[in-house]
């Protein structure tokens, strides 16, 4: 495993430094889990935005709590889109009744959708949670786009292996095509190793020629 990691990190770094910086950089498949050595998970999300419905097939593998690998493959209009491979690197701090982490996530978007361009990206994130609250802040830069994602809110555990998260999301984008700001509720439910997430973001500000309207996402995932 150490050999694999030692191979992957320089490969990823080489790709990142060699290709143009226009890519997805942020958003882990699941922020909270799996955070254990050898943990893995899969998630399917359906998103609807700009009159387009996209199904995302996503997977995550955790080498160790500080290092994960994620893969996201979009499917829309009867064909695959460009897959995104990312490597979240996390530094955890476990206090008594809270846990937090800083994350640095290099990523590569591969031309699996029929194109020929490879894109790279990078994000910086911070998340913290206790048994009562959860918050995630993510900033990324890709090509001409700067993005910020914020999730913050309450968590409600039942003490029997399941929890609800009621969060509020703020999504901001700034690029050559303009700016837009989305905001709305996020509901997350998990029981044991199953997670269900739904979010609906309203368009608060839209001055972007390539964006139109609201955003809906519903997903279900499992970790092992």
């Amino acid at each position, binding site marked *: 495993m150490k050999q694999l990691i030692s191979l992957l990190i320089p490969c990823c770094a080489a790709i990142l430094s060699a290709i143009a910086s226009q890519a997805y950089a942020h958003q882990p498949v699941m922020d*909270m889990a799996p955070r254990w050595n050898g943990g893995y998970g899969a998630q399917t999300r359906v998103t609807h935005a700009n009159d387009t419905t996209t199904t995302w097939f996503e997977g995550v593998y955790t080498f160790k709590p500080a290092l994960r690998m994620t893969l996201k493959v979009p499917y829309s209009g009867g064909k695959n889109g460009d897959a995104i491979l990312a490597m979240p690197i996390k530094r955890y701090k*476990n206090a008594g009744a809270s846990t937090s982490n800083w994350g640095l996530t290099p990523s590569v978007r591969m031309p699996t959708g029929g194109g020929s361009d490879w894109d790279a990206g990078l994000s910086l994130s911070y998340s913290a949670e206790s048994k009562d609250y959860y918050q995630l802040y993510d900033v990324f830069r890709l090509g001409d786009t700067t993005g910020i994602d914020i999730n913050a809110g309450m968590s409600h555990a039942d003490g029997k292996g399941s929890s609800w998260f009621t969060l509020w999301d703020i999504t901001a984008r700034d690029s050559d095509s303009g700016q837009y700001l989305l905001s709305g509720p996020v509901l997350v439910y998990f029981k044991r190793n199953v997670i269900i997430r739904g979010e609906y973001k309203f368009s608060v500000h839209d001055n972007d020629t390539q964006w139109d309207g609201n955003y809906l996402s519903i997903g279900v995932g499992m970790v092992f």
Partner: protein
Amino acid sequence: MRIKNLAIPVFLVLLSALISAPAWTKNYQINVNGMVCEFCAFGLAKKLRKLDFIDITQFEDGVKVDIENQLVYISFQEGQAVNQETIFEAIKSGGYDPIKMTPMDEVASPAEVTQ
């Protein structure tokens, strides 16, 4: 006569305590820093259950997680030596920081934990 009447129930109480004590003392409470999310703690419990000295007939397959108080309860099989280092390693590989491990009979009663 009064002493005899008192002695029988006292004897029975002591006897029941002696019978239940060995099973209870094989259980331990572990304080774990940062364990506040059951979804995340799923992996920690999974790591602990893989240890071959865990008694899966106790708690929930040998392990009980209490995120409210950041505690993990584990049960050892009868006659197994307590290996704190192995347990702490399992917790660390689950992504959390173990602080201390204490025999259950020193910190809680069975009723408090199994409720």
